[in-house]
């Protein structure tokens, strides 16, 4: 779940989710009284792509290696430089990547055939041994790789032919193909990994990959510099030089855009993005992340389902999406956002099933009634902590506290650092917590296996254990037919919804701003920033 970046995604995420310092308020003011933007088009003449593009990122990366720091912005950068065996389309479908094709001779074996003629940006050819070395590097304890857990059930990864890699698993895993997509495997060369063991992704070592760009410079808190990799096997990117500047202050970022110092920005918070609409084209993209309340079902007072329902009735979820996220979020019906089902089920089927989930509506009278009938009729006191990198979570918590006060429940809201929040998540000390998760795969099981599975003790912070739900999830792990698997997962979701171990609040979106002369082609689905997104930058 580092992968979940927000959650755990550490600072970038934070940035992503808007760690704007106090100057946020000023950005609206600046937007209102800004002088007309200087038009300076270098080489942006009709249709041709600009040679150099500079984009602002809201927070710095500390490492380019996604195994060491796995925020969404880390992925956005690394996926330009490195590739996985499989790739992901903007809509969330798995497609060939470095592997031109793959077969599954039995349910525990995968055979990948690599694309012919692929070279790393240093000129050396990609071999199956490099793929093996990349997996070994993730599993090497010396590298402290946060993705190592994904390979816990892998028995062996072997070179079985000129262009062939065979992976064997201890037990069937329907999610495995996602593991070798960019979210779980970014391939580098054996020589490079050996040379820089334990320190890949620093300003000195950078990254080596086969991707659309090669990274030529990185300084934490400053910038990442990328040059087009002309030897890339995909469609040639239009932009030759891409500079990503880390500009943590929201006000500075906006002025930089207005003065023409940057051509756009990624990962703007919804508060901030509104201020950008006068200076740039802002696109809102569902980012698959979810914010929910997690009730510890094994601990008083939330072990009482009536208490959970009372809290749910008190939460004005539609008001949060509208008032706090300015309508740029969707009221959530479950943990996996609709975009997470893209590879399994048709959208209509998911929407229909989600519509049938009837979470308690905002209704204080009903909340009072539930509480009166519960084991805590006189109310209780609870704590709710939120990470400083998620101010929107803090606002939601305060809104909830105000409503709960009316029914006699005291909610103490406190801001803590992201690091402290991560440490508290698995500690079991706090019966009410925020769940804030950015999935890296496009498979609902990523969330469901972590949070609803009765045997997932490390991650299931609600300690939810229901035989029927766990049974459906287990069956889905070995089910190879995607339609049947989707149905099993959907069954787990709807079944668990009635018990309310989590109260899903909203599915968020991320905002991308680009100056009028640029456009990001090829669709803006929920996976638009996974994969070589910058290769699609063109003059508009």
């Amino acid at each position, binding site marked *: *779940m*580092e*992968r*979940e970046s927000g*959650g*755990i995604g*550490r*600072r970038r995420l934070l940035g992503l989710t808007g760690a704007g*310092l*106090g*100057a946020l308020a*000023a950005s609206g003011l*600046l937007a209102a009284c*800004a*002088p007309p933007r200087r038009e300076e088009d270098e080489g942006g003449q009709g249709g041709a792509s600009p040679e150099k593009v500079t984009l602002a990122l809201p927070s*710095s990366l*500390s*490492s380019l290696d996604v195994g060491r*720091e*796995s925020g969404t912005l880390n992925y956005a950068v690394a996926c330009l430089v490195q590739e996985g065996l499989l790739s992901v389309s903007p809509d969330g479908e798995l497609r060939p990547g470095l592997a031109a094709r793959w077969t599954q001779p039995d349910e525990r074996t995968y055979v990948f055939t690599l694309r012919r003629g692929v070279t790393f940006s240093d000129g050396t050819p990609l071999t199956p041994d490099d793929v093996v070395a990349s997996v070994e590097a993730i599993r090497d*304890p*010396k*590298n*402290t*790789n*946060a*993705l*190592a*857990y994904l390979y*816990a059930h892998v028995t062996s990864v072997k070179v079985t032919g000129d262009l062939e890699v065979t992976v064997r698993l201890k037990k069937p895993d329907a999610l495995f193909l996602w593991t070798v997509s960019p979210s779980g495997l970014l391939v580098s060369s054996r020589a490079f990994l050996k040379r820089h063991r334990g*320190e890949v*992704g*620093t*300003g*000195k070592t950078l990254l080596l990959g086969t991707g659309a760009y090669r990274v030529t410079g990185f*300084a*934490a*808190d*400053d*910038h990442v510099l990328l040059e087009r990799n002309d030897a890339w096997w995909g469609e040639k990117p239009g932009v030759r030089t891409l500079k990503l500047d*880390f*500009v943590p*202050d929201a*006000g*500075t970022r906006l*002025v*930089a855009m*207005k*003065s023409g*110092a940057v051509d756009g920005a990624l990962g703007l918070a919804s508060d901030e993005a509104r201020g950008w609409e006068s200076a740039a084209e802002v696109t809102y993209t569902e980012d698959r992340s979810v914010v929910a309340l997690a009730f510890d079902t094994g601990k008083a007072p939330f072990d009482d389902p009536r208490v959970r329902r009372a809290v749910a009735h008190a939460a004005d979820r539609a008001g949060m999406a509208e008032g706090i996220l300015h309508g740029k979020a969707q009221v959530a019906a479950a943990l996996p956002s609709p975009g997470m089902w893209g590879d399994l089920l048709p959208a209509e089927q998911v929407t229909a099933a989600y519509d049938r989930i009837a979470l308690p509506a905002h209704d204080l009278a009903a909340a009072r009634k539930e509480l009166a009938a519960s084991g805590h009729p006189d109310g209780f006191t609870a704590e709710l902590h939120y990470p400083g990198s998620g101010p929107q979570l803090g606002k939601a918590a305060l809104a909830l506290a105000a409503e709960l006060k009316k029914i006699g429940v005291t909610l103490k809201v406190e801001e*803590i*650092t992201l*690091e*402290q929040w*991560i*440490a508290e*998540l698995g500690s079991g000390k706090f019966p009410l917590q925020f769940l804030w998760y950015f999935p890296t795969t496009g498979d609902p099981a990523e969330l469901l296996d*972590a949070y609803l599975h009765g045997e997932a003790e*490390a*991650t299931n912070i609600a300690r939810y254990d229901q035989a029927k739900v766990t049974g459906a999830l287990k069956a889905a792990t070995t089910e190879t037919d995607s339609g049947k698997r989707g149905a099993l997962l959907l069954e787990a979701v709807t079944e668990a919804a009635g018990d309310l171990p989590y109260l899903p609040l909203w599915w968020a979106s991320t905002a991308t701003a680009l100056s009028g002369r640029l456009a990001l082609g090829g669709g803006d689905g929920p996976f638009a920033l996974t994969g070589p997104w910058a290769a699609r930058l063109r003059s508009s």
Partner: protein
Amino acid sequence: MSTPPPPVPPAPGVAARLGAALPPRYVARRLAGTAVLLVVLSAAVFALLQLAPGDPARTLLGARGATPEALAEVRARHHLDQPVLVQYGHWLGDLLRLDLGTSIRTGESVASALGDRALLTCQLVGLGFATALLLGLPLGVLAAFRERRPTDRAVQGLGVVTLSTPAFASGLALIYVCALMLGWFPAYGAGEGGLDRLRHLVLPAVTLGLAVMAVLLKLTRAAVVRELARDHVTFARARGVGPRTVLFRYVLRGAAVPVTAGAALVLAYLLAGTVMVETVFALPGLGPLLVDSITFRDLPVVQAVALAVATLVCLANLAADLAQPLLDPRLRTPAPTPKAAR
């Protein structure tokens, strides 16, 4: 009738005068004191960081990757599983071998993570200090000469405004005016070497300098007002000595001691101010690194940055202390007389 002036004894050489003002034993004692202070500080930082919330191993691995084995592995590699005193011993031992260790967060050597950042922060602090001196001293003198008149009040009011404006507001205002409206300076970033770096640092340095300028202004004003009231200054003015001579020969000489001491203190404020200024101007200095490393509990980096900053502050104070006897003979430690030596 006038008597001839008494014969002037030959002036002692520069080295002898320096030796008299700053006896080597005094300097050595002060240096040793500074070293002890730094060791105590490093222990204090180490202890304080133990109290900080969060768990670096868990942050590094993420909630899903944090299996007991993986956690144990990370903790063992960075000695996080050992008693605090042993951890501190490891760190101190490495330091004595001039090894600052490896960052837990990035795996990079701390020395290389610090290198360019320390240089940038020093440049920023240097320019900020120069700005504060260039604005604070003349304005302080001006206010003192116009004591309790409108100019004095205006200057002091200006000082209060700059002192109480947070850097993110003043910085943003400067960026808005000087970068966006006038286009004189770049909005953010550190630039690349030489003049470009200087151009990028003008706005941050002014932001930083303005915030502490008021401290120097107040100190200078108070010192100059006090000097102006002294008998020898009144007498000099009565004698018809020109105002410029009065200012430079009499007043500023007397005001130099308190102002120097204050300036050294201001340096500590400047270093603290860089955290905010570097964030506003997106500068990759020590400030953002320190903040991130503290919340991550990246011990080796926090220790190194804290020590670097503490060393700078201690050395600045040491320099100010050593300068005082040079500026004012009355502050010199009396040389031990033969009698006292016995």
